[in-house]
């Protein structure tokens, strides 16, 4: 069945074009039909394609659309590649995407630029599908940049607010830094392998034709790209600000799909990383650090979406940890589960915000459980899932990650496991802190807000329910086994089932401990927590200030660059040196002209004397007196 993938990619694009060009005229109903219908259709097509893939015995489907450029003997083709990995990704993207479109109907109701919103959302889907389906790194990069654009547009969706616009710009620029690394990696691959088709690249590296040095370099460069997109240290700074966008956007782009592109990229390029242990180790370390630090920050955030944002960063860190130790399938597994419960959480948060007419500060919430039961219920499920309570989704994936962090033959170590577990504990802690502060305890709402708290309309709640459901069951698919064909799995250092079971038990204990710690600290209005804050005020300030990374970047990069541009380039270079010298020359000419004019004094005597001098000069010269 040829052309299917193309169709899959083009459906959202069509939605974008139609909504973007005509949406304003055609009115919301039409916008809904197009903007939601096409993603649903896309989901259907994705399922269909997946079925074909399975019936074909997991034999990758390749679809070449057209040749983008043919230079010398290098052909840059636009072609799609569907194997189990990309199939999973496509299903997540379209599935969660479709759900969130539905949710948005309720959430964005009455927004003045409703059509624009859906247009952007469809645009995002288009690029995201390009990203996951692209066969060559080039296509992937197109999608990669495209989703960046979409997120830029959607973060700055309410552009009237300067901060939101700025947040969008920040996201784009930060991603660009990563993309620079990505590009270099791509170039290096191209020079080394001579093609950008990812399957061929993997083969080439697996074939061991490529020197290890290059493999490592490539690995690191691509990882830089991934850190940008997936908000890993040091490029994580944009994601929290990205929460400026509409909440469904945060759910779709900044939790479920786009930010996981980095994970997908590295999983996709696993062939390279098998050859580059150093790069892998780096990934693991960075990932774990990110997970831990983000978790610590999440502990003290007071904006409901910020908390979720940092938890996203943290979870992505977990995924990278898995990638780093070679458990690619596991990483994808966590990606899969995370997509659901994190989407659920965000949408729940959205529903809360919606209910509280825009309030986002968890210090002014509380006791919502009874007021908005559906939201709180689904939120609870998702929270449990992310905290890793069995038998929910997060439990399986996270547990797998921790196990491989310890046991993987590719750089697994006890330290990774220890820190990972600690982070898991923190996860449970801050998530339940959030739940407690928002839904339980006494209400700290402003009265006028309090009176018209209301449950969200059905499109939103229904989506929440579906997502919550998946948060429960997503873990039961044994995704790693499913992906074995597509992704390499690490060999284990030791295969003792007992140990594995012990660890699982330990993980559960940790999670529970986290829950209880949360209850202990925040159970009753959180005085204890405040007490602790008083005790460790400095640490608290550090965490609340997000380790002041933004400030550091501002001091170290932004301001110096502006300073150099302004003082060195503009004032010194252009104005003083270049134009200055030019004007100097001009002035010189003017002064010379004035001098000559003075010589032409009008006095006949003087003229005659000049003539005489001229004669003397030429005579002296001719007669070789000089």
């Amino acid at each position, binding site marked *: 069945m040829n052309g299917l993938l193309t169709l899959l990619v083009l459906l959202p694009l069509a939605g974008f074009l139609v909504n973007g060009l005509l949406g304003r005229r055609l009115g919301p109903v039409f916008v809904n039909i197009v903007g939601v219908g096409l993603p649903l259709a896309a989901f259907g097509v994705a399922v269909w394609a997946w079925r074909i893939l399975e019936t074909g015995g997991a034999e990758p489907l390749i679809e070449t659309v057209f040749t983008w450029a043919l230079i010398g003997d290098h052909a840059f083709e636009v072609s799609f590649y569907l194997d189990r990995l990309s199939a999973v990704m496509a299903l997540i993207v379209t599935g969660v995407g479709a759900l969130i479109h539905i949710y948005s109907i309720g959430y964005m109701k009455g927004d003045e630029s409703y059509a624009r919103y859906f247009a952007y959302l469809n645009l995002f889907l288009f690029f995201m599908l390009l990203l996951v389906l692209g066969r060559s790194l080039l296509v992937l990069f197109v999608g990669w940049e495209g989703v960046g654009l979409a997120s830029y547009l959607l973060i700055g969706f309410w552009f009237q607010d300067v901060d939101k616009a700025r947040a969008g710009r920040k996201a784009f620029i930060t991603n660009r830094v990563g993309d620079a690394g990505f590009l270099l990696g791509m170039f290096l691959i191209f020079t080394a392998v001579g093609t950008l088709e990812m399957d061929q690249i993997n083969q080439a590296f697996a074939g061991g034709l490529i020197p290890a040095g290059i493999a490592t370099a490539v690995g690191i460069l691509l990882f830089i790209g991934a850190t940008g997109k997936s908000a890993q240290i040091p490029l994580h700074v944009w994601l929290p600000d990205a929460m400026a966008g509409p909440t469904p956007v945060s759910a779709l782009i900044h939790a479920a799909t786009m930010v996981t592109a980095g994970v997908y990229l590295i999983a996709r390029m696993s062939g390279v990383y098998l050859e580059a242990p150093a790069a892998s180790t780096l990934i693991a370390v960075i990932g774990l650090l990110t997970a831990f630090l983000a978790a610590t920050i999440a502990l003290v955030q007071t904006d409901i979406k910020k908390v979720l944002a940092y938890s996203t960063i943290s979870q992505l860190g977990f995924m990278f940890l898995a990638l780093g130790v070679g458990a690619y399938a596991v990483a994808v597994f966590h990606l899969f589960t995370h997509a659901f419960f994190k989407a659920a959480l965000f949408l729940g948060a959205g529903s809360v915000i919606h209910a509280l007419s825009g309030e986002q500060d968890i210090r002014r919430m509380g006791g919502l459980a009874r007021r908005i039961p559906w939201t709180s219920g689904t939120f609870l499920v998702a929270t449990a899932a992310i905290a890793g309570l069995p038998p929910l989704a997060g439990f399986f994936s996270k547990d797998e990650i921790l196990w491989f962090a310890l046991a993987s033959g590719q750089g697994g170590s006890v330290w990774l496991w220890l820190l990972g577990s600690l982070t898991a504990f923190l996860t449970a802690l801050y998530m339940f802190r959030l739940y407690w502060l928002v839904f339980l305890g006494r209400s700290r709402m402003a009265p006028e807000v309090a009176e018209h708290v209301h449950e969200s309309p059905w499109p939103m709640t229904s989506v929440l329910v579906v997502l919550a459901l998946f948060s429960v069951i997503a873990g039961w698919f044994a995704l790693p086994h499913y992906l074995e064909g597509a992704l390499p799995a690490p060999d284990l250092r030791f295969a003792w089932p007992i140990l594995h079971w012990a660890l699982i038990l330990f993980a559960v204990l940790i999670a529970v401990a986290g829950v209880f710690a949360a209850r202990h600290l925040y159970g009753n209005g959180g005085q204890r927590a405040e007490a602790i804050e008083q005790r460790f005020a400095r640490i608290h300030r550090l965490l609340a200030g997000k380790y002041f990374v933004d400030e550091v970047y501002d001091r170290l990069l932004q301001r110096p660059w502006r300073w150099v541009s302004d003082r060195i380039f503009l004032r010194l270079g252009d104005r003083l040196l270049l134009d200055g010298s030019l004007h100097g020359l001009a002035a010189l000419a003017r002064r010379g002209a004035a001098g000559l004019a003075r010589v032409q004094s009008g006095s006949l005597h003087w003229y005659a004397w000049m003539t005489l001098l001229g004669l003397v000069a030429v005579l002296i010269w001719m*007669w070789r*007196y000089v």
Partner: protein
Amino acid sequence: MTIETVFLLVFALGALTGAVAMFFLRHPMRVALALIGTMVSLAAIYAQLGMHVIAVFQILIYVGAVMVFMIYAIMLLDVRDRSFTERFSPLLLAGIAGLLLLLGVLVDGLLRGQPFPAVDVPPDVFGVGAFAIAFMDQFWVYFALTAVLLLVAEIAASAVIDIRRRGQDVAAGQAERENGHG
């Protein structure tokens, strides 16, 4: 030291004296007289050298025509203003410096240069008759041309003199310049 040389020296001295005198005499008329003196002594030198024709012309044309015209002009333009009271221009010193420089260079060059080897000239080549013949049969074109030149000079002079009749134009022109600049 033959007698010719003595004569030459004397006349050369005369010519030089006249020339130098021209510098210091205030009244143009006196300058003119000094110049005439110089010219006459030069004429004498020419005669001495056997260039009688040229000597004659020197007296006739220069002293006879040019200087007379000059003196006429001097008498016509007897203005006793700054140009009369102050003999020297501001560039006096510069002029003197230039004098020394150019003099040094020129005279030295003249003396160090190698003239074309002298040929023995038949005595009466430059006698009036001989010269006239040569002139008429070899160089007569210049005779014609001289006529043209003099005609042109006459036209030019008369034209310039004519301008006097257009004095008012000058006044008008000046007026325009004033209000033009203002």
